[in-house]
């Protein structure tokens, strides 16, 4: 690798520009197409570590504990995020069920556990060859986890059924609310540039020590 000049290209219009120093809290926009290029964040690795860990603690009750209990005509009915996936599955809408499973159950867990393992590896300087791949996966699959959309759907459902039944909020609702906040918070604390620099540095160090051995 030769010494690459400090140039960057706009991801949206490919304009080549010299990378300016971006202060914390500032955002860098492309002068040609006005797309946001970069936003510097502080202490990204530590924050992502803490937030993804607390998100994971909430995950099991958020997905498997009942969200709401409905009471109508003397009958009680409750349901969790997992039950909602099962109901589509039992109605034989397999395509929708799989999409539901991925977007509301699998990808939120996938994102948080990937980010936790990546941050732990960075903190402990444990380089493995899969590390760049894992971080790439965490970034590119981010938009497929949709707990935030689901949360709005829960509110819409509450308003829809509030006229026909009395509603009790359960543990799952609170946990899912905070799980959503945690997944959003990891996205806003994550500074991919810092992560890539750390990963790059660990990679170089690991190849250097391997050569010395």
């Amino acid at each position, binding site marked *: 690798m030769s010494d690459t000049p400090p140039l960057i*290209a706009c991801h949206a219009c490919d304009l080549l520009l010299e990378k300016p120093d971006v202060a914390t809290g500032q955002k860098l926009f492309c002068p*040609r197409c006005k797309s946001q290029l970069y936003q510097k964040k502080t202490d990204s690795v530590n924050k992502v570590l803490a937030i993804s860990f607390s998100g994971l603690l909430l995950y099991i009750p958020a997905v498997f504990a009942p969200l709401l209990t409905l009471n109508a005509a003397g009958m009680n*009915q409750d349901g969790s995020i997992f039950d*909602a996936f099962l109901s589509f599955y039992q109605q034989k809408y397999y395509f929708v069920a799989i999409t539901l499973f991925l977007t509301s159950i699998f990808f939120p867990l996938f994102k948080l556990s990937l980010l936790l393992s990546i941050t732990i590896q960075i903190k402990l300087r444990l380089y493995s060859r899969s590390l760049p791949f894992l971080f790439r996966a965490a*970034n590119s699959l981010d938009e497929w986890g949709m707990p935030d959309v689901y949360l709005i759907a829960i509110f819409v459902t509450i308003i829809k059924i509030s006229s026909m039944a009395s509603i009790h909020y359960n543990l799952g609702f609170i946990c899912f609310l905070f799980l959503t906040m945690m997944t959003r918070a990891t996205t806003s604390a994550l500074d991919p540039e810092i992560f890539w620099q750390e990963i790059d540095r660990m990679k170089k160090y690991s190849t250097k020590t391997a050569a010395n051995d």
Partner: protein
Amino acid sequence: MIEKPEKRTTAMDCGFISCHDCGKLISAKEIPEGFQPACPRCSADIHARKPHSLSRTWALIITSAILFLPANLLPIMRVDFLGSQEYSTIMDGIIYFFHENEYGIGLIIFTASVLVPLFKIIGMTIILLSIQFKWKSWLRHKTAMFHFIEFIGRWSMLDIFVIALMSTLVKFGTFTSTQAAPAASYFTAVVLCTMFAALTFDSRLLWDTESSNP
């Protein structure tokens, strides 16, 4: 080596490829010929432009436009109430909320299930046509529109989540229950197709039209 970049010089013009996954700038000279180049930092496949971007995006947008019809015309939900079955389409659900004076919720569902998919299909068609016919005006606005389409893509799933929750929670034996209906599959397919279309599309193609003929 490399001169200071002039105004309106793209990375491709200077022999650079920026990695789409991690943004690293890679000199095309470092890439051995005959190999599928991979990013040295994140090991993703690198391309100066996303491969077959236009045809893939066209295919996905046309697919979602076709699927949009059954998604809206067929019933998406079935409500059983004391033995009678009532099917409702997406529009029926929205009209129901307006009748019940729940304008806020009605608007949210209308935006997420009708406006957003429609906006995505029409917006992407405008963007694709402007690349095909090399229209060079409003590039900045079209780029902003594309970023917006990327951002709102996921929010169309709202109605599917609501139906999933309704069919789980509203299950009171013979008294009343809610079930999904065929449009749910079509609607999910529309959302997925438009999301994939945003992924396969390369907004740099918009700007290539500008630099092609000075």
